[in-house]
């Protein structure tokens, strides 16, 4: 069958331009419609989240402030020892170069971590951190994970350098966790 271009033409239905009176009527009608739309917002109620009092819940995989972990006290092999062995893989993976690890040898008298060495210094400069989570991925012992805390402001830059003790401490859960399906 030969191609008939006129078969592809779609008729565009154009209504005649409204007259003065119809235009005025339409303006009036549209104004009322607009008023209805805005009034529906009053009925609907505000959507604002009253932030400091009311917080958006975070997802379980939210990448907030880092946490360092210990073994459980009840763990049979290494009760209460730090998981971090000071391998510096996290520091190597960090694109923002915000992690500083200084390793030291464990001794039988002073046993801190489960491995041969432990992190004598473990600092994260949170003013540089981009919360990419590469450190978490790089860690072979799951010693560092991303927590849920996102309220990280302070008055001085130096206060944003978190030391090992701060990262190890049980975090104050200031951010609500989103429950499944929410």
């Amino acid at each position, binding site marked *: 069958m030969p191609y008939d271009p006129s078969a592809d033409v779609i008729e565009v239905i154009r209504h005649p331009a409204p007259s003065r009176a119809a235009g*005025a009527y339409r303006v009036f009608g549209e104004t009322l419609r607009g008023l209805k739309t805005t009034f529906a917002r009053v009925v609907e109620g505000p959507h604002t989240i009253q932030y400091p009092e009311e917080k958006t819940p975070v997802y379980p995989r939210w990448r907030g402030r880092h946490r360092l972990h210990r073994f459980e006290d009840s763990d049979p092999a290494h009760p209460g020892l730090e998981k971090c062995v000071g391998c510096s893989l996290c520091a190597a993976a960090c694109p923002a170069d915000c992690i500083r690890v200084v390793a030291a040898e464990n001794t039988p008298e002073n046993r801190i971590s489960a491995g041969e060495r432990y992190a004598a210094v473990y600092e994260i400069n949170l003013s540089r951190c981009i919360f990419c989570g590469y450190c978490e991925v790089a860690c072979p012992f799951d010693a560092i994970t991303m927590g849920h805390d996102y309220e990280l402001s302070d008055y001085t830059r130096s206060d944003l350098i978190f030391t090992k003790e701060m990262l190890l401490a049980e975090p104050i859960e200031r951010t609500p966790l989103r429950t499944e399906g929410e």
Partner: protein
Amino acid sequence: MIHLADVNYFEPWWAQIIKSLVIFGVVFAILPLLTIYERKLLGRFQGRYGPNRVGPFGLMQPLAEIVKFATKENFRPTTSIGFLYRLAPMLAILCAISALALIPWGDVNDIFGTRFGLYGIDVSIGPLYVFALAGISFYGIMLGGWASGSKYSFLGAMRGAAQLISYEVSQGLALVGVLITSQTLSLTGIVHAQRGMWYIVPQLAGFLIFLTASFAETNRAPFDLVEADAELVAGYFTEYGGTGFVAYLFSEYVNMMVVSGIATTVFLGGWMLPGNPHIPGWVDPFIVGAKMMLFMTLFIWVRATLPRLRYDQLMSFGWKVLLPLATLNLLVTAIVVVA
């Protein structure tokens, strides 16, 4: 002495002083509440709360702002004309407040044995007085914009001048229809004439025209080209800060109240309720207040809804649509009343 107008009922001089002080005090107590009401309602219309941090429910917000404005440095631009620059906001607020005297809050009532008229003054030229003051308050805008010595202010003032003149005509003509029907120029007289039926029913067209023109007269959205915060920064009061700014702001709100009051008196039956139930006289001001509040809410609602008109749209709407409509309304009313 030239005889300017008849005064229908007036009290001894001391009662008039008390009355004026009470009206002034109450209105200026309501004004800050009105600003917070507008901001909170605007918030609701936009799906948010509006100010709610200062004091309970944010009700202390206007107080905080007044303190902020009052403690600001009183400076003026070097290009400004000092005397006029200071005079203009005073003129604006003076005219706005003077117009308040006309709004009838209630009938003549016995209070503590003295007969008080619950209004500033009841003259036989009511609406003319209001329009005269509106005409003078236009100098407040004009002088303010010109004396600031700034291009933005001057542009804003020029726009304001053209807009106010254009819409004053339609506003006045819309009221004339009512005046023909009621056969009186006294505002209390107009309220009494509405005992049978409020004028919003027979004068619906006039009411809509008056309302639309009032939006333009009070420089409210969608006719707020005078301020046009996005294009002209703030129009004629760009260069004003501190108390001068507050004077302009308050005069705008007082103008809103005056227009609402006139609309209430002229179209919504003033202090009357549907069915004319027997109520004590002291309730009257509250009824008028509630009706005025309806208009305020409408003003805010429209502000939240409609975008600002373009300048040529504003002018063509005023002269080509509103003015012929108002004239037609007047003509029809006149024919109906005479026939």
